[in-house]
């Protein structure tokens, strides 16, 4: 019983923390973030196992974590509300070439991030070549360029 409760507590706690810290953090993994993740895994591992290093405990924990994961992905598929709560929604940052500054502030995205995505994905050079920029659920920025109109 203890293992299942420990597993569930740690799973839910991490779920809430990662949702609260925002989606940007998931896409921009710096070297330091990677080290932080290692430390987090080390810390939670101790609390998960406690002093019980038996194989049964290990199996129960793995089962609990997988069951919760499967359970939540089932719920996400069935219910739009759960999916929104767990993964958030995409957000349009540039609409028809116009930036939504308030949304960018809230999500801590600036023009440099958008330009970086534009260069990387579309080979664009300037902000005025961008038609739409969308902050996706996983934290990445998608760029849709303006169609080049043949003039004169």
């Amino acid at each position, binding site marked *: 019983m203890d293992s299942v409760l420990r597993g569930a*507590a740690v799973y839910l706690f991490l779920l*809430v*923390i990662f*949702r*609260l*810290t*925002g989606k940007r953090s998931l896409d921009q993994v710096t070297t330091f973030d990677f080290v932080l993740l290692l430390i987090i895994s080390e810390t939670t591992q101790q609390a998960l196992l*406690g*002093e019980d290093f038996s194989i049964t405990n290990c199996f129960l924990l793995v089962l609990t974590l997988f069951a919760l994961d499967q359970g939540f992905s089932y719920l996400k598929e069935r219910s*739009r509300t759960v999916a*929104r709560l767990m993964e*958030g*929604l*995409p*957000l*349009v940052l540039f*609409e*028809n070439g116009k930036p939504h500054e308030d*949304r960018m502030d*809230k999500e801590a995205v600036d023009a440099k991030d958008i330009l970086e995505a534009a260069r990387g994905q579309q080979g664009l050079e300037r902000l005025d070549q961008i*038609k*739409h920029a*969308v902050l996706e659920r996983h934290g990445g920025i998608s760029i*849709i360029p303006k169609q080049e109109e043949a003039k004169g």
Partner: protein
Amino acid sequence: MDEVPRIGDLQIDQDLAHQKRAWAVRRAGRAAMVLLVLAALAGLAGPGPLSEARAGDSGDPLALEYNRFTRRDAPAELRLRLNRPQGSEARVWLGSDYLEGAEIESVQPEPDRVEAGTDRTVFVFPLVEPGNATAVTFYLKPRQVGSLAGRVGLEGGPSLRFDQFVYP
């Protein structure tokens, strides 16, 4: 299948009302995270300034220092101060209820012997200088979660009550 709405040219599942709520929740959540860290620093989640507690005055025959908040399986201490103990040995007892909830890892100084009573366990310490103040520390690990009440005392002398809360 849900129809994905269109916003301008984009067919996208954007929902600004939901987004605003999400931002509000995130702000509240971040504030809560900061508060929790501050509370932990202050000692509300385990040892720390607000967790330090004492029972009995320093001039009393028996005084106790302990932590109001501890955590399961984490090291904890009960620091006892004995003033003017009489006789050649000090007989300190701990209630069995408390010892069911917390496991003694070690006692400093080590007792000469330990005697089991009906509702208490007695630790007997020989005294080098009877009449002089001395100190005894119990190093423990709480094993049960929730509030944990204990009694500690001197045989034939005063006893003290103390309450702890054990976090999981």
